[in-house]
């Protein structure tokens, strides 16, 4: 995904470039200028015709290679992305796995929205409302009582927190790194900073446990500074769990995420900086008026895509770091699906939970896209 995106972004910045170039300098007009070549009237006519042309056999033959290539991906999409959606039907039955999958698929008992009502427990909400008569109190009780709603809240909360922190961190990091003049130092920092991306979460959580343990470095420092008397147990404080997850995400992914922004920054024409310098812009102003606007399209597209991913707030970190005391803030939808769907053998319940998650993700991504378009940036679709 990230690679495709990167290309898209590059194409766009390239497209945008020549216009600016013309006004500033003549030297760099070589390569991308081809796009701007004026089209003759004759050719314009041809193009118009092409648009209205019916699909003839000759045309099909001429494009056969393209069609075949396209067909391959079309079939791939159908087989691997759309056919499996039929499995969503399981959310409306009580699926009992028999030896033969299709046999059990067609012969399981249909339960309608039963699984969803087990997920959402609207009866609890109603009960709480009848008792308290206050919408907010009732909602709070409902979130506390209905396990799925609670995991949904946790997933959304951690997802948004992760999104904001990792997003800001990556952009800041890319900009700061771009300002480093020493090329060796820049390369070194970049390489080191994206290495944690390749560590698996099980290792990262191991490191986290160790650093935050009673004899770990964090507690040693706190004790040395006399902030705490005795060691502090970070994993027992529900309020700290989301930040711990967010910080570990930032530590692990900042370097990696920054690569895309760094690429976008290098695509900005250096002449712009030179011109700005002549106009008297300092470093800060150059960042503000050239770098940030230069990478704005990248930022928006990545934001739209990541908002669709908000509900994928993670599984491993929470699964590996949770304990009984903080389970109410630690469990995500994915953990719920594993525990109840696979663990308790209620595949239908797991499907229903996963299906709801997909639906929310699609809604989020559509909203984000609309907002991006409204604010004058190009959206994802």
């Amino acid at each position, binding site marked *: 995904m990230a690679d495709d995106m990167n290309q898209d972004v590059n194409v766009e910045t390239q497209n945008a470039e020549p216009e600016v170039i013309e006004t500033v300098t003549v030297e760099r007009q070589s390569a991308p200028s081809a796009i701007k070549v004026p089209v003759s009237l004759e050719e314009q006519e041809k193009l118009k015709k092409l648009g209205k042309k019916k699909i003839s056999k000759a045309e099909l033959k001429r494009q056969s290679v393209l069609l075949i290539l396209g067909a391959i991906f079309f079939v791939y999409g159908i087989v691997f992305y759309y056919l499996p959606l039929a499995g969503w039907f399981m959310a409306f*039955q*009580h699926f*009992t*796995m*028999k*030896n033969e*999958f299709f046999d*059990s698929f067609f012969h*399981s*008992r249909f*339960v309608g929205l*039963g699984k969803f009502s*087990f997920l959402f427990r609207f009866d609890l909400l109603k009960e709480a409302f009848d008792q308290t008569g206050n919408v907010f109190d009732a909602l709070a009780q409902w979130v506390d*009582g209905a*396990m799925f709603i609670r995991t949904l809240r946790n997933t959304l909360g951690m997802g948004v927190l992760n999104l904001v922190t990792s997003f800001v961190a990556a952009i800041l990091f890319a900009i700061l790194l771009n300002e480093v003049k020493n090329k060796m130092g820049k390369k070194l920092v970049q390489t080191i900073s994206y290495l944690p991306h390749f560590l698996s979460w099980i290792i990262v959580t191991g490191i986290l446990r160790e650093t935050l*343990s*009673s004899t770990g470095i964090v507690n040693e420092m706190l004790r040395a500074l006399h902030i705490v008397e*005795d*060691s502090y*147990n970070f*994993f*027992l404080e529900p309020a700290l769990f989301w930040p711990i997850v967010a910080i570990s995400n930032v530590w692990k992914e900042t370097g990696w995420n920054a690569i895309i922004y760094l690429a976008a920054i290098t695509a900005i024409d250096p002449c712009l900086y030179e011109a700005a310098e002549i106009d008297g812009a300092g470093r800060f102003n150059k960042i503000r008026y050239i770098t940030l606007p230069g990478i704005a399209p990248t930022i928006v597209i990545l934001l739209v895509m990541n908002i669709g991913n908000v509900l994928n707030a993670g599984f491993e970190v929470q699964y590996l770091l949770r*304990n*009984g*005391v903080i*389970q*109410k803030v630690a469990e995500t939808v994915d953990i719920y699906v*594993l*525990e*109840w*769907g*696979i*663990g*308790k*053998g*209620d*595949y*239908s*319940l797991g499907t229903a939970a996963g299906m709801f998650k997909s639906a929310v993700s699609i809604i989020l991504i559509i909203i984000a896209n609309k907002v991006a378009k409204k604010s004058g940036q190009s959206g994802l679709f």
Partner: protein
Amino acid sequence: MNSKKFIALGALSMLGAAALVGCDKKSKYTEFTMFSAMEGSELNPDNDIQNIIAEKTGVRVKETWLTGQTAEEAVGSIIASGKLPDFIDGGNGMTQLYAGGYLVAWDPYLEKYPNLKEMYTDAEWENFRQSDGKIYWANVFNNTYGAPKAPGHNDEAFWIQVRVLEWAGYPEIKTLDEYFDLIERYYKENPTFTDPTGAEVPIIPYTVQAQDWLYFALENPPQFLDGYPNDGSVIVERDTGKVIDYNTTDTAKAYFKKMNEEYQKGIVDKEFATQNHDQYIQKLSKGQVLGICDQNWDFNYDVQPALKTAGLDELGCEYIPLGLTIDGKREQRWHTYGDTLNASSGCAVTTSCKDPDKAFKFLSDILEQEIHDLRYWGVKDVDYLVDENGVYYRTQEMRDKQNDTAYKASHMCQYSYMPQWLGTSRDGINAMQPQEQPIEFRASFSKPLATCFDKYGAEGYPDLIGSVIEENTAWFPMWSYSNELKPAYPEDAADGSHKAGDVWPAGVAWENMGKCKHEWLPKLVMSEDFDADWEAYMADYKKCKPEDFLNEMQEVVYQRIEAAK
């Protein structure tokens, strides 16, 4: 010939040779696979005894174990993947396997192979019958052949290091208060100790697990402290069969209040609530921890060999089980005499097995005395010796080897989740498994442990605990039912009262109670204001509707009493 060609030729010939060897191996034995829903260690591929057994039976079984997930999750993903091993012990996931029709019924093979039939009496086999009236698995543990020999205690207890008892002059410890008082006094005088390597190791007076399902060590002592056996999820009154919730009794409150006090005094490990099983075992293996509450099988198979290897056993770091009650006056049942029949899980053959007859024949073959001896005692004259009276024994060197994990992986092959016997061997002299051989049992003792046994005049661990000796009740153990509870009914009821997929109130309540206790019990121990938090816990607990669960358990008790008549 240039060097590249030479290398290529060499590589090719090696590949050919490897292929030939591969073929050769395949043709010799039938290869089966087995998955057990418990953490365990895999054997080396060229394991000696595995090969000997393969030679004799024509079958070799590759065992795999649980890694990281829970048993239910592992079985769930095996089913979802559709790739089943030939043999499986799914633990809590057995019902899923049965409901999915993945298991081969034992019934025809029970008649064919008397070794298998012999495992249980007809009445006992009845317990294994599923809703379709057939038997799909047999529990392989806790099954005694001939006269019982067990000098061990494989159940739960409050454990204490030998050296603490030795320091106090082997006192009699009967209550929770006495237990913690002793630990406190010892800790006050000995906050650290020097291990055999000369390192100064800080002492952790008491620790307990609170993670995942292993939190039972924190959760279930109230039932034992009240003098009841390990029914696991409820107390059942012995005379009336009435079900009592041990989470809400006065004893439960007293127990958690005591734990809370000890935590505030710094006696209970500060990290108990967040440590995982590995960290826990590591602490015990270092000899750091004076006291724990746990099931023997959950720690001692790892901890005792580790203590021995490190030489900590001679410092008195091994554990002695104590049979505590809340007041020290009542009878207690920490130790379960006789076999505990757990019909809810066991060894099964799956429908993926291409030759079920051969699989069952293998299960039967490994119960033959000769092969059973190979599995548990090892090779004669290599792993054990036989004296003139036919008694098996080991030299110290042999015993040390049995504590060496590398040797075990390359040499020993127990097939430990397949049918096996405890008790007396068919020769009428020896124990089926070495740890039950009296001479072996005492011979492996360190000096402090032997002294301790002598001082208390105990022959086996059960004597140290001193539980009442009596027949198990008809409903025992109730956890074999509560382990199978699910949030939705897996099958239609015979009387039509519910259908597959309907919400199972008892299952939902049980799940919610577990979640609630997972959160609250560690919090109670660490609480600054215990009484207020206890009230809050009780309020939360009531919201889980425990009565849904308890009522169903009550019905099950009555059913089991009826069935036993």
